[in-house]
Each structure stands twice: as structure tokens, then as C-alpha cells.
């Protein structure tokens, strides 16, 4: 069985999703549920912390793509931070930096949200 979990934290108005384990076609539904929960709770400043994400396949990447436009339409964003280099390479391979804000650290991503909110 694939091991994957999503942890929830908040920093100010930013909803942080801590991803842990391996995100594949079997576990992608858990991320989808987490993003849907954020939308339902109107927490659309979503920051995905990938420090403990060991693997991602296209099924996981597909979840980000499926929700990004909708979340932005709600006035929010999905930012991605702290990815391990081998996981970042997968995002990069598919051109995700063109579509998503991918930051080195959680702190940078949080301040990016705060700066946007202040505008």
C-alpha cells in the first residue's frame, strides 16, 4: 500500500497542507479531498509544503492542475514550497513553474500570500 498523508496547519490566513509520503494514482484522491475541504471552508490561500513528499506521479500533478484555475477564480492560489530536489525535477520537467508559484521555503511562500493580500 502506498503511504501518503496530508496534514493541516494554518499560518495567518494561509492554509498549509503538509504532504508526506508517496503521491501516486492510488493516493491522489487524498490530496483532492484536502483541496476540496479548503475550498469548502473558504480557505483558498493554499500552501502545499512538500518537504516530506518523497514521490509524485502525474496523478498527483494532475490534482494541482485540476484545481488551480478554480482556486484562483475564488480569489486564492495554490503555492508549492520546500520540495525535495528530485520531486521538484518532476514539476520542472512538465513546466509547472510556468503555471504555479513554486518557492524554496514555506516562509517565502507565506509572505508571498501576505504581500498579495495587502495589495
Amino acid at each position, binding site marked *: 500500500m502506498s503511504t501518503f498523508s496530508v496534514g493541516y496547519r494554518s499560518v495567518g490566513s494561509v492554509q498549509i497542507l503538509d504532504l508526506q509520503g508517496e503521491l501516486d494514482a492510488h493516493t491522489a484522491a487524498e490530496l483532492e479531498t484536502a483541496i476540496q475541504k479548503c475550498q469548502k471552508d473558504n480557505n483558498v490561500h493554499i500552501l502545499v509544503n512538500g518537504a516530506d513528499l518523497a514521490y509524485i506521479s502525474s496523478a498527483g500533478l494532475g490534482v494541482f492542475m485540476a484545481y488551480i484555475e478554480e482556486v484562483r477564480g475564488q480569489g486564492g492560489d495554490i503555492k508549492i514550497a520546500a520540495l525535495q530536489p528530485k520531486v521538484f525535477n*518532476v514539476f520542472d520537467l512538465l513546466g509547472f513553474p510556468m503555471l504555479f508559484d513554486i518557492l524554496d521555503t514555506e516562509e517565502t511562500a507565506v509572505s508571498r500570500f501576505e504581500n498579495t493580500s495587502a495589495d
Partner: protein
Amino acid sequence: MDTRSNILTIPGSTRFLEEVRAFIAGHALRAGLDEARVDRLKMAVDEACTNVIEHAYGGESEQRIEIAVIARPDRLMIRIRDTGKSFDQEAYSEPDLLQYAKRRKSGGLGVHIMRKLTDEVTYRSTRTYNECCLTTLLRRHHGGS
């Protein structure tokens, strides 16, 4: 799981993808691939098996997927066979990420990834099975043709 055997057969279910990745990683490491290339091959095979489950079998299935590792002096080939609907190569087009997001489309990246992460991807279908073969070269051959 005996990762020394060169064939792994699983039911067509995403529950077994982690097992497939471990199987490929074991063989790829023994074949001498470095960690980065092991990761690439592991992901390419995951994508191939996910495509079989989602498209050839139309979802979770008891039908089997056979994954065979074929080691050659200059290459490592992973042969994936299924007995579902065959893949229509003619209908496939390279994904456009921006269009994907706009259309809220979440699938279809697998073949693109398989092609990016391996040296060769081939498909063939017989009357009894479909076969996808992913090849990773163990060393580059330079020089004239």
C-alpha cells in the same frame, strides 16, 4: 515480494503501484543505474501501469498486468503487458499545460512523462495482449552511424 525475479505480475489496481516501483528500483540499481536514473525509470513504469489501469482496463480491475525486466549489456528494458483495450497512438497528442489547467483536465500526462524519462517507448498489440516497452540505455554510444 521477490525482487530478484525478473517478472512481477499484479492485479490492475493502483494499490500495487508502490510494489511496482520497488520492483523496478531493485532491478535498476542492480543494473548499475544511478539514483536519478532509477527514479526516472521507476516513475515511467508507474505511469505506464497507471495508464493500463485507467485506460486499458477502464479502472480498478482483477485483470493482470505483467511487468518484465529484460537486461541487455547496453540497455535495461521494461516490458509491460495487459489484456485490456489497446492504446491508440494516433489519437495521442503532446499535452499543453496551460490548456490542461483551463479545461480542468487532470490526466493525459503519463505518456508525455514516459517519453521524457526514458530513451525509447514502444507499443504493440497482438490478438491476446498489449505491450508497452520502456528502454533506458545504460551507456551512451557516440560516434558515426
